[in-house]
């Protein structure tokens, strides 16, 4: 799948979770910039999984720290 199109869909999904209105870039971190707690991470991951019909296991999540890494991971998982 096209990276830009995937990034657009993820940007739409993160909006309701981005309560602080953090400006999003590929370098934005989920723990540091967005300040996601574990429950928010689960809900956000579930939203991504449902949108793209994929599984992002916790093992994979451990490797994803930034917004850019998430987009790359989704592109890769969609194949």
């Amino acid at each position, binding site marked *: 799948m096209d990276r830009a199109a995937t990034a657009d869909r993820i940007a739409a999904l993160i909006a309701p979770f981005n309560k602080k209105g953090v400006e999003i870039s590929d370098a934005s971190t989920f723990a540091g910039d967005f300040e996601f707690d574990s*429950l928010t991470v*689960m809900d956000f991951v579930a939203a991504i999984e449902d949108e793209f019909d994929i*599984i992002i*296991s916790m*093992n994979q999540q451990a490797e994803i720290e930034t917004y850019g890494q998430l987009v790359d991971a989704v592109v890769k998982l969609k194949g």
Partner: protein
Amino acid sequence: MSDLFSKFDPLIQQREALLSTGVTDPFSLVMERVISPTVAVCNGRETILLGTYNYMGMTFDPDVIAAGKQALEDFGAGTTGSRVLNGTYAGHRAVEDALKEFYGMDHAMVFSTGYQANLGIISTIAGKGDYIVLDIDSHASIWDGCKMGDAEVVPFRHNDIEAMEKRLKRIPEGAGKLVVLEGVYSMLGDIAPLREMIAVAKANGAMVLVDEAHSMGFIGPNGRGVAEEQGVLDQVDFVIGTFSKSVGTVGGFCVSNHPKFEIMRLVCRPYVFTASLPPSVVATAATSIRKLMHGEAKRAHLWENSRTLHKGLKDLGFQLGTDEPQSAIISVIMPDLERGAAMWEALLHEGLYVNLARPPATPAGMTLLRCSLCAEHSAEQVQTIIGRFDRAGRIAGIL
């Protein structure tokens, strides 16, 4: 040199801030004397115990105590060995036989704690390339078992059948699947819709493990747990349980009908590489388990206690973890950690011990005062408990 302990600084600071308000440290309570399953002396004050998980009150059962004393005399203080070396005594076989009979299952394997039972079974059966699908509110021992194995770990929202099903359906063809559920979730005291969840798990080709730590002895017609209560125990591949709650001592176990189950004794590292339970412990456990098979009257009284306390606290205006009592755990939701700690201390001053539970142990960052009832709490004690909640709630400004 960087200090490896600096990662704990936020917690150290939070603790210091809390204790500087003058509140008693909730995590350094010492019980000086234990008088019965429901009463102990804490800080010199006689205190009703309402946070022990001693659901069936077996800790002081005369037959249980006698069996322990006899085993201590006959077999000594400890085994000094692993089950697979010199650590299997007659008592270990006897308690496994008692478990097989209690659950009506073919195999039983005893661990040194309930934590090790989850750690060992989950990490051993779900390996690299397999998938574990589990409830986000699972106990720490389940999470640690997931982490210790190499399986892909996929959590779903608490008790959400649809979320679980979606994840199961996305797992690649041919991968091994283990669904991990609990009968009673101990933080809020709510139960799982096991009948529906297990049906979905089975329809998607998954094996099912259910932790029934907080239901053994009093939920289900024979006290086998929530799966029995909902008529699906025969669909459960692995039941995990503990001796440290209704059984009244310490230890953990897994029971199963899997035809190859016995191989676990050779491949499960938290079983192999640790000393087995002392003879006195397995003797008390076996005696207690056999008595729990005939615990109908106690079960009925425990449920009565649970209903009375739930209604009493609800009527006082406390916010509870469940709308109806679903187990022997009644969880009282506190507005925040500071007022939760103040309420906990006020209760202790009234002579009532409950569990203060806080993040990360609790779901959604809640602070909880967790009450676990005992079949040995008298109806009068339950009324006393409600009265103490009333007074402490006013003192702490919760009510």
